[in-house]
């Protein structure tokens, strides 16, 4: 077994399970196979339902709650209860899948892009659909063309709701003119939020060379991109409540100019055309190449690596599978030194996998991630979670990991066999200092705590 085996499992993947390193074979082949083939569907994820069904259910409950509230009746808040139920199920399924998947490199890409396109569960009704957004918009698209991923994301009801686009109305559209006549004081109209974040966070990056005018114009282009409501189904020909719906009445008519290029009005396709161009824009290539290199390899990635990923991005028309393979092929990704301090999310998943543990109590899972500083699907802003040791490595955050490691050790008690376990999951990347500490531990439980809190396990 070589050091590359341990690196493939722990740096590219989500952390080794006991036995993984022995079974892997050639590390690069193992990684490339995960990119070449989609995983077979996981029934745990499949049982979560889909966004339209869940939206239908919770919006109906919300309507009933509001009626009861208006009538002043005593009521049980079934809406809030149901949102929490979906949230718990989606979080549990996500971490169960991560603990057990045989394609952990692919799964890391899923988590990376879910965070890149963050919808945060601190805004309703995101808790009920953030996990479904990951399953529907992100998971099927992480090794295809970035443009397809981008379009799936920006047309998903979660993103349209999270960044307020479902209510954005073109001032020159039929709906906009009608609203101005009927209710001028409500000033119904354009909302720039989604357009701005697409440019700033999803594609070009904040230094990507766009202007405030580009933001406003792009916001006009995607007016009408919305989520189907009841009357859209009854009267406007939408398929089902809670699906993407292009509301042509709200769409700003006319040709628009963005980043110097003209986009004639082609309804929904006007926005699609802009997204396709943004996906292969040089600023997008640089921004995503940097983020990927930072995520997988180092807080300060080498320029040669970023440049290579950027070149592949541009040469392949932003083929994410090709970019992932370029990462696998690059020497900088195989440096022996562990340069990444794990995020709490990475830390917890790698501990689950090392312990061959499948979480089964959503409240416990939720509480531990919250305490360690990374509440599931809840980064608090559309920028997603940060990704450097500066962000995660505070003294207090380290102390909480140690407390958590101690609690895990206590649970395992004398059953734990820390040194063989450490060798099984860290392989040749296990350092002499950690070996010495584990060998001298006073109990299996303490040894396990020391392993989880060791420099070897806190980094990847």
């Amino acid at each position, binding site marked *: 077994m070589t050091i590359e085996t341990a690196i493939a499992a722990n740096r590219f993947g989500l952390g080794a399970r006991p036995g993984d390193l022995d079974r892997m074979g050639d590390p690069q082949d193992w990684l490339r196979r995960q990119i070449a083939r989609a995983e077979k569907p996981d029934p745990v994820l499949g049982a979560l339902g889909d966004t339209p069904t869940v939206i239908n259910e919770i919006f109906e409950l919300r309507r009933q709650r509001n009626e009861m509230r208006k009538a002043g009746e005593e009521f049980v808040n079934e809406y809030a209860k149901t949102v929490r139920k979906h949230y718990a199920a989606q979080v549990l399924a996500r971490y169960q899948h991560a603990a057990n998947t045989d394609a952990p490199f692919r799964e890391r890409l899923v988590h990376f892009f879910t965070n890149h396109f963050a919808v945060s569960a601190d805004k309703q009704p995101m808790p009920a659909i953030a996990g479904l957004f990951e399953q529907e918009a992100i998971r099927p698209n992480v090794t295809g063309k970035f443009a397809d991923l981008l379009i799936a994301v920006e047309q998903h009801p979660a993103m349209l709701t999270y960044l307020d686009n479902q*209510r954005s109305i073109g001032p020159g559209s039929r709906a906009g003119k009608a609203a101005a006549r009927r209710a001028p004081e409500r*000033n119904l109209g354009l909302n720039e939020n989604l357009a701005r974040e697409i440019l700033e966070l999803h594609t070009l990056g*904040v230094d990507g060379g766009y202007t405030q005018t580009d933001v406003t114009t792009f916001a006009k282009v995607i007016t009408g991109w919305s989520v189907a409501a009841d009357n859209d189904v009854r009267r406007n020909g939408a398929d089902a409540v809670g699906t993407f719906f292009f509301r042509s009445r709200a769409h700003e008519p006319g040709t628009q100019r963005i980043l110097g290029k003209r986009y004639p009005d082609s309804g929904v396709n006007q926005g699609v055309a802009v997204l396709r161009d943004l996906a292969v824009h040089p600023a997008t290539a640089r921004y995503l190449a940097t983020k990927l290199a930072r995520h997988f390899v180092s807080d300060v990635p080498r320029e040669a690596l970023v440049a290579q990923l950027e070149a592949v991005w541009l040469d392949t028309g932003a083929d994410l599978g090709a970019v992932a393979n370029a990462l696998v092929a690059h020497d900088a990704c195989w440096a022996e030194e562990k340069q990444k*301090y794990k995020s709490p999310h990475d830390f917890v998943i790698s501990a689950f996998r090392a312990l061959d543990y499948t979480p089964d109590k959503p409240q416990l899972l939720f509480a531990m991630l919250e305490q360690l500083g990374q509440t599931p699907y809840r980064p608090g802003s559309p920028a997603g979670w940060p990704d450097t040791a500066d962000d995660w490595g505070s003294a*207090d955050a380290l102390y909480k990991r*140690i407390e958590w490691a*101690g609690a895990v050790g206590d649970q395992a008690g004398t059953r734990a066999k820390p040194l063989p376990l450490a060798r099984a999951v860290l392989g040749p990347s296990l350092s002499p200092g950690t070996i010495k*500490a584990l060998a001298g531990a006073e109990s299996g439980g303490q040894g396990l705590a020391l392993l989880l809190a060791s420099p070897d396990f*806190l980094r990847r």
Partner: protein
Amino acid sequence: MLDRRTLIQAAIATAAVGPRLAFAKADTEKRLLVVLLRGAADGLSWVAPYGDPNYAGLRGQLAIGAPGASDGVHKIDGTFGLHPAFDWLAQRFAAGDALAVHAVASPYRERSHFDGQDALENGTATALGKRDGWLNRAIAPLGGELGNETAIAIGTTTPLLLRGETRVANWAPSRLPGVDDDTLSRLARLYENDEFLHARLAQAIESQAIADDAGNMGGKRRRGNAQQQFRQTLGQAAKFLTAENGPRIAVVDSGGWDTHANQGAATGGLANRFRGLDAALAEFHKGMGATWRDTAVLIMTEFGRTVRVNGTRGTDHGTAGAAVLVGGGVRGGRVIADWPGLNAGALYQGRDLYPTTDLRSLCKATLIEHLKLDAAHIDRAVFPDNTPVPVLDGLFA
């Protein structure tokens, strides 16, 4: 029997780095709490210019009423009033130890939260202007060796404002079970050759000891909704700032101020946030006790919000807004503003409150006149590109 703190200290002291543990008293009796409102808190609701002839018209359903009206502002002067949710803060204005600065903005002139916050915290006009925080640079003379931190961030992560070369402490309440001392000692040895982890473990143990000493809160009972938790956070900040040999400066984050939709006026979403902030500040005031006379609280946000209401009964990212300074030594009871007015021609880019005061003038005043830091140091190292901008003077007694 050795207590836990002594035991762990001994274990760490034997390790290579061997730091002295215990916050040493910084060279000042003054205390500073900085509250960062993330998401761009709406200055025109917070400190409402009810007396501006264009305010009610432009703000429409989001306008806060004049003093005396039902749900009207707490009157500060003939132009400005405090949002009605701020009962405690209004008392401080009446008592003369709170002031607001209006039409104030950092020099950042775009409208991204993330860049705006970075600029606010790094003290320059752009997100990448500096990689460290202005408060970190400012406190360099006060000391910040391991075990000698002048400042503490209360929260899971340290905000950029406090990040940089000067070492600062960090603490957040824990609901996890404690870890036993023998395991901590062994980890201290395991981290011996790992400077990053070793330093952090030492610091964490010291913070834990203060939090435990301070009324045995330990933070283990952190419960309730976000607003109740924020109140507990400020209560904890007071414990750190009043601890003997504790830190002198604390920074806390408050999120959720990005009111694009259904912002509300005297009641509603934003009003609830204001009420929570007010209750948390009251908790802090109570916790500071007699030390309040040496304390200043600076409350600021990355930028203001649009003057007009948007299509979803909220407001979008704007430019100038408000900031508040409150504390025992503050000469308050007033609003400081070179008020540009809200008539159409006076708005920044036709949409935002025009910035007339550089927020850094307020920060500078706090550093120089409250913390008594050397003005030349501030000009040289803290806000080097802001030298010509005058310090707002006369803010402190």
